């Protein structure tokens, strides 16, 4: 595939690997967090850890929207789906996620709820036009990347006065989550394990630009490299972070110059801010309540907001106390540190958020590296 294979070239990877080996300072440790589950997935899928010098450690962040969606929000979606007039449209990876009492959207579907898998918000909108007698609800999740498509669908529905379409909004914000990690007890306490730098998700920055990360570099003195998702992108970004740390620099660098600019996609940002506003706080599975970390639909458009339209009961679900996901998501523990990993918590029966989606850290260790991980655990 043109424009993809070039970024998966094994020979170029060996060149970057040699540079890394030459530049990584012996006895120094580089703890780098890839925020996004897409990066975690790429690292495991291509075996990038095998190419890194011993001193470079990847720490896996909370950037997987399915993983961090709290069980209570999923329960609300299931409640909406159970209404006989509703067709609930969801992205496929949300369908199997267990909510309270291990009930998932798929289970609700088998009991008669009309739940449909869609590939985009536009598909849900098309369904609403085709089924005027039903209430079509789009279960919107995701970071800044999936928010603009939701906004476009919402804008169209408003303009067309499509009265049977609404959105259950769970869109969350990347910079707020990174702040929460930097403010976490492990990161603040001097002498405990910290994070030396961040790989920023390029797809998010296509929308929001690289500018929102500048404060992390300035205030927290953490270098950030906006990184693409192909394996060479990731490897090169790691090299860029290593160079900043070696030089004692902390700035925002852009590896994904083929699509990311400092200010991002202004048109998309305008549309999003026209329709959505920040929630005062939002619960993240694993991180707890994070201030100003999610979006809600503005009151003016409440008719298109499934939360005000169907008023599902607010729920708080309790997590398993043995589960180490909160520490794993902040980079303070690894999957093999968790008692539940691989024993009761496996992809078929996920207990914690990191096992829920294929992009979660525990799911990636289990899927791609379980042999080594289980031996470390023993």
């Amino acid at each position, binding site marked *: *595939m043109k424009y*993809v294979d070039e970024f*998966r070239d*094994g020979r170029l*990877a*060996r060149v970057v*690997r040699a540079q890394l080996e030459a530049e990584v300072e012996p006895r120094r440790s580089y703890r780098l967090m890839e925020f996004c589950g897409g990066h975690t997935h790429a690292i*495991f*899928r*291509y*075996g*990038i*850890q*095998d*190419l890194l010098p011993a001193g470079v450690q990847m720490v896996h962040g909370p950037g997987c929207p399915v993983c961090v969606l709290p069980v209570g929000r999923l329960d609300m979606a299931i409640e909406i789906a159970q209404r006989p007039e509703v067709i609930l449209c969801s992205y*496929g990876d949300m369908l*199997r996620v267990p909510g309270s009492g291990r009930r998932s959207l798929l289970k609700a579907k088998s009991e008669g709820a009309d739940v*449909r*898998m*869609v*590939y985009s918000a536009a*598909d849900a909108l098309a369904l609403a036009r085709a089924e005027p007698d039903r209430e079509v609800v789009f279960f919107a999740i995701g970071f800044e990347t999936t928010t603009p498509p939701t906004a476009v669908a919402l804008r169209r529905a408003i303009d067309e006065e499509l009265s049977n379409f609404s959105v259950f909004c769970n869109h969350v914000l990347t910079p707020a989550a990174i702040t929460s990690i930097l403010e976490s007890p492990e990161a603040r306490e001097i002498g405990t394990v910290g994070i030396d730098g961040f790989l920023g998700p390029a797809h998010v920055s296509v929308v929001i630009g690289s500018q929102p990360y500048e404060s992390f570099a300035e205030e927290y003195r953490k270098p950030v490299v906006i990184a693409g998702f192909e*394996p060479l992108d990731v490897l090169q970004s790691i090299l860029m972070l290593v160079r900043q740390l070696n030089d004692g620099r902390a700035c925002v660098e852009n590896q994904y110059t083929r699509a990311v600019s400092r200010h991002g996609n202004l048109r998309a940002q305008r549309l999003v801010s026209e329709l959505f506003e920040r929630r005062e706080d939002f619960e993240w599975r694993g991180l707890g309540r994070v201030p100003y970390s999610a979006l809600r639909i503005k009151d003016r458009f409440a008719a298109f907001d499934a939360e005000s339209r169907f008023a599902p009961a607010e729920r708080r679900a309790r997590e398993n106390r043995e589960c180490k996901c909160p520490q794993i998501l902040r980079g303070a523990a690894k999957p093999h540190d968790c008692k539940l990993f691989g024993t009761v918590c496996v*992809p*078929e029966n996920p207990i914690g958020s990191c096992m829920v989606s294929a992009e979660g850290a525990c799911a990636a260790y*289990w*899927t*791609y*590296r*379980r*042999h080594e991980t289980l031996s470390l655990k023993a």
Partner: protein
Amino acid sequence: MSTPPRATPAERIELAHGAGGRRMTELIDGLFKRHLSNAWLERGEDSAVLARPDGRIAATTDGYVIDPLVFPGGDIGSLAVHGTINDLAMAGARPFALTAGFILEEGLALAELDRIVASMAAAAVAAGVAVVGGDTKVVERGKGDGVFITTTGVGEIPPGVELGVERIAVGDVVVVSGTVGDHGVAVMSRRAGIAFETEIVSDSAPLHELVARMLQRVPGLHALRDPTRGGLAATLNEIAVARGVGITLRADRLPVRDGVNAACELLGLDPLHVANEGKLVAFCPPDAAEALLAAMRAHPLGRDAAVAGTVAAGPPGLVELETGFGGRRVVDWLAGDQLPRIC
């Protein structure tokens, strides 16, 4: 005997077509027997009586519930023939007879059923296998999905052929007969909601002749499998677990079409998890690999055959992939289906 009445294309399946009365006879004579005609069906007995072959008999059954019924490169009719023949072929058997059970949904257009049965008949003739018996039931509208087909097949295993997972040994090479993922991608490209344009067609094909060639050339072949649902990843994981061995694949040796790679990239799938309906994976001792490859490549269905991996002592039960990028990873099987009903 008078000519049986033909079903007119505008008609649809009604509950009466399954009720055992005249409508049912009209459907069987006018549609099924017209396409699948052979001595056993003409006799119209409750059972087909077959001559006993010399060798051992392989028997298998498989249900087909694919959505959509027609896809690029095939349809549920041809698939129901190929899939069952291939299960027989993986035991080294030469298939000689099939039976077919049809569950029809009230409202199915007879013209569509006609096309499906015609395609089934053509696939059976091309494979040299007779459909010697069948059954038809009709369910109410909404209780089926057009048509479900179950085929049962029997085949003869020639003397001296011994295939089985228990014969797989450490050091064996893993040979795939061609590109992986074609069938799944072709089906997904026509599925409501995700339809996309691709030149990929299903690989649905009968593999028994390719297998006969392979066995002729390499009688010491250890085992054969057809990686259908769950793709090559599921098949290899089953074997690794059953034999307590490790299997290592090499990404750069694995044949995958560009269009399949592109579609998988778009949909977030791994070609190793995508279904095949005309591919096999063979295990053989390393010294026979070259002869096996030559035999496979000489047959049209094995033209792209490649050694994709090896069997190792460990880690037991694990399938690993050497990525083209220079790292390694586990090739897992899926917790559930990627997408439902692809066969």
